[in-house]
């Protein structure tokens, strides 16, 4: 930089000249300091640039800027798509939205969503299902519970969207289940099986063996119109022994084989059903089975 040349009177006062000279020196010194400052700043800036560039490159490589640009597009589109009224609505319902988000992000819900996504990802490996296969699939416990849950969800959706939009409508049967048995509440286990039918249990034996005597046998034989003979007693004694050893009342065929009495003779000795008649006289339960 040159000394100022516009001074109109450079020669008429030496002291003034000195003063100007000193001032010039001062200015030059300031200028030099400024240059140093700029130099220093450049150094710092260069160092900073050298340090930041790789970091920025790294960020670029990781796609941050691309992502930022995309995010900007998203925001841009969101701004274009939503009106200020929408945003006001958003503000009004922010608590509900957060509640929903919190519910949706519960671990169990996320696990269900994750499982469902897995199935969707493998959808190409799943075979087509007809109505019959669909019906038989409903026998699966898991499918049933899932259906119940889905129906409950459908019901909520139907309530929320039904009619004039009043959310608290009385629950009505979903059209999907019309004509079917009522669906149990969502996610509740299926109703416990009914208690066993006691009518199918065998009736108690009608004759107690411990009170039996020969007199009892005689009385019961007379009741049945039978006069007991030795031939009868062969059968009765064998039946009592058989029942005592096996715990089972022998049927006609078994008596015939065991007591070595032809079946025809058994029917002669004990008419009206030899197995049952003889068992009653012998004081043992009537034989089971149909042979």
């Amino acid at each position: 930089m040159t000394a100022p040349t516009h001074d109109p009177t450079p020669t008429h006062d030496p002291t003034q000249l000195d003063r100007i000279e000193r001032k010039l020196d001062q200015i030059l010194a300031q200028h030099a300091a400024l240059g140093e400052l700029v130099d220093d700043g450049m150094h710092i800036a260069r160092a900073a640039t050298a340090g930041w560039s790789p970091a920025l490159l790294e960020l670029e490589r990781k796609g941050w800027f691309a992502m930022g640009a995309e995010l900007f597009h998203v925001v841009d589109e969101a701004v274009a798509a939503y009106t200020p009224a929408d945003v006001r609505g958003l503000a009004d319902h922010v608590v509900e939205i957060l509640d929903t988000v919190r519910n949706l992000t519960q671990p169990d819900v996320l696990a269900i969503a994750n499982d469902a996504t897995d199935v969707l990802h493998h959808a190409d490996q799943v075979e087509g299902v007809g109505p019959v296969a669909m019906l038989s699939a409903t026998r699966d416990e898991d499918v049933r519970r899932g259906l119940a849950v889905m129906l409950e969800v459908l019901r909520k959706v139907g309530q929320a969207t039904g009619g004039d939009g009043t959310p608290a409508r009385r629950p009505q049967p979903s059209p999907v289940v019309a004509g079917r048995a009522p669906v149990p509440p969502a996610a509740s286990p299926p109703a416990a099986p009914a208690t066993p039918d006691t009518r199918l249990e065998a009736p108690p034996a009608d004759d107690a063996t411990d009170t039996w005597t020969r007199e009892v046998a005689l009385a019961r034989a007379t009741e049945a119109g039978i006069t007991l003979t030795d031939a009868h007693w062969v059968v009765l004694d064998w039946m009592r022994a058989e029942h005592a050893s096996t715990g089972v009342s022998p049927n006609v065929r078994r008596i015939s084989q065991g007591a070595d009495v032809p079946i025809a003779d058994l029917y002669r000795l004990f008419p009206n059903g030899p197995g049952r008649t003889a068992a009653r006289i012998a004081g043992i339960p009537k034989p089971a089975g149909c042979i």
Partner: protein
Amino acid sequence: MSHLSTEPRRIALICSKGGLDECYPALIMANAARMSGIEAQIFFTFYGLDVVTEARVDRLHVNMVGNPASPIPPFVAGLPGMELMASSMMRHKLADLDLPTPREMLQILSAAGCRLWGCELAMTMFGRTRADLVPEVDDVITATDFYDKTPGHHIVFV
């Protein structure tokens, strides 16, 4: 042994089928009736006649084709030898359960006083004579004879 009616109960079964599985209902129901003090008769007609035919009673087969209750699918059941195999299996199963063979069932029934009849028309149709039937058969009769012999009976067609 006590019945609501004082009239003795009577049952008459018409056995019209000759399968190993198809003859048992008539034989067992008749025997159960006799064991319960109920009078019983069986009229063997059409293929049911095989059950009382000497040469056939021990060779009765299980009919597998056209039987929706059979566990074997029809196109398999129709293969040669399947019927023999199934019949053999059922015979073994019956023996395991200590169930009498059809022949022994006839002997038991006859001893128990159950009347066994052969159908005359079926005999003519299949070209059989009285000598072709098992000795337990009481007689060969016509359908009208059958009705004459079964007054007051419950008649069951199996």
